[in-house]
């Protein structure tokens, strides 16, 4: 109820706090706002031939970088595609990149044209869950890089499968990418994004997100939260929703 915390002073953290202050009452230090304007991606972060810049792609890419490559970007807009994810990975200059997917061929095709990591592997999702008989991690070295987890579209019940939680737990830097069913893309509402967030952050109080927006307001103290809906809380758990975050990093 009254706690002091310290977090690293980085432009990414500053930007995330500025974005959160738009939905939650906070007094911000002017120095933090000026810090949030540093290190923004520009046109050079995009390749017009392979991944042309759009404002939404720029916002999502900025978000991925600011979240330290631990986030979820559902493809709720056509421009938030595999190309955008691979472009964000390219910006990290990471040596080891693993793509865990049930569509290895599809990702292989997209990957051409990107100068990605020296060590790039496209593996079936089950292979990313590499445990020995005692359910302990078999080879910890491989978790140093970035994992792109192609989240299966079949479920979206709001509760993640324990295997995905375990994979996300093994890889500190995981970008979850998913292609939600068309109904969510068309209506841009009702998508149970907290399922992916919960896979990334196991301690997330996921239960409250399954409430309606009114239900959430009933358990959260209203004067603190200026929220108009549940989707605005997605930023708290590193999930990019285009309907709420299309301006992320662009108007700090």
């Amino acid at each position, binding site marked *: 109820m009254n706690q*002091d915390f310290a977090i690293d*002073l980085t432009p990414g953290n500053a930007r995330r*706090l500025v974005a959160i202050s738009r939905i*939650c009452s*906070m007094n911000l230090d002017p120095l933090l706002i000026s810090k949030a304007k540093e290190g923004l991606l520009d046109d050079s972060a995009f390749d017009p031939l392979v991944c042309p810049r759009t404002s939404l792609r720029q916002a999502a890419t900025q978000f991925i970088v600011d979240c330290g490559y631990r986030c979820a970007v559902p493809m709720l807009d056509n421009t938030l595609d595999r190309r955008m994810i691979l472009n964000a990975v390219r910006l990290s200059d990471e040596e080891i990149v693993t793509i865990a997917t049930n569509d290895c061929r599809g990702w292989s095709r997209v990957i051409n044209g990107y100068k990605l990591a020296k060590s790039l592997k496209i593996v079936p999702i089950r292979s990313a869950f590499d445990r020995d008989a005692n359910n302990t991690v078999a080879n910890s070295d491989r978790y140093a890089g970035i994992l792109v987890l192609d989240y299966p579209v079949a479920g979206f019940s709001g509760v993640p499968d324990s295997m995905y939680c375990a994979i996300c737990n093994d890889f500190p830097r995981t970008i979850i990418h998913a292609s939600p069913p068309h109904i969510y893309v068309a209506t841009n509402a009702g998508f149970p994004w907290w399922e992916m967030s919960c896979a990334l952050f196991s301690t997330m109080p996921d239960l409250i997100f399954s409430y309606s927006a009114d239900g959430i307001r009933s358990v*959260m103290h209203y004067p603190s939260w200026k929220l108009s809906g549940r989707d605005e809380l997605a930023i*708290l758990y590193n999930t990019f929703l285009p309907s709420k975050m299309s301006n992320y990093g662009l108007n700090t």
Partner: protein
Amino acid sequence: MRYDVADILKNPPMLVEDVLKLIADRLNKHYAVEQRFYGVLDDDWHASFIQSVNAHAERGRPLSTEQSKIVLKIITKVRTYLISYGDITSDTVDGLLASPNHRQPLYQSTNIPKEVRHIGSNLLGFRFKYNELIISDIKALSALSISQAAYFEGTMRIWVVAVTRASLQPIKSLIKKYRFGVDCSTENWFHLLQYSLDKESSVFVDEETDLIVVNVCDNELLAHWVSHVAGGEPI
């Protein structure tokens, strides 16, 4: 007085645990109130104590000196009822009260004062001697936090409870109800919490240490974001 060994084997002397079982059985069965000591033992504390100590004894475990003392007080309280119900004779019960026999030797009770302390972050530590009523009240507080349930910390042997806007008053009531001791610094912390209600959180930049300092007031979800998502450390 001469003791007949055969008679003792045939009718072994009544033990404190046996009388406790008689009492527990009467409370368990759905008797009318006049068959249940006229409601003398119907309050939560007596019901819980009698059932838990009886279950403990039935598992073949010894009673503590304090438990035995309390059981004897309860027997004294319901002595006349037990006799009138025909559960026990007056000679037997008086003999037992004068020189109590137990199934197993008693072990010495330890004295653990009930106390509560602020243990850092947003947490309170409750220390007390095992008491099912207190534990169930503490567990009920979990529903009032969206991010952290109450848990037992085995090394320190304390119950850890997160304080939230919703749980602040119930926690204060619990402290009052069970008469937990509160030290001065915890008392001051409670004042700070009361002052923090409805206050806005603040974010400062500390350029010397290259850190962002976030003071989170009355906002559990923001505190969870700072500590579990942004990697913030409590200071």
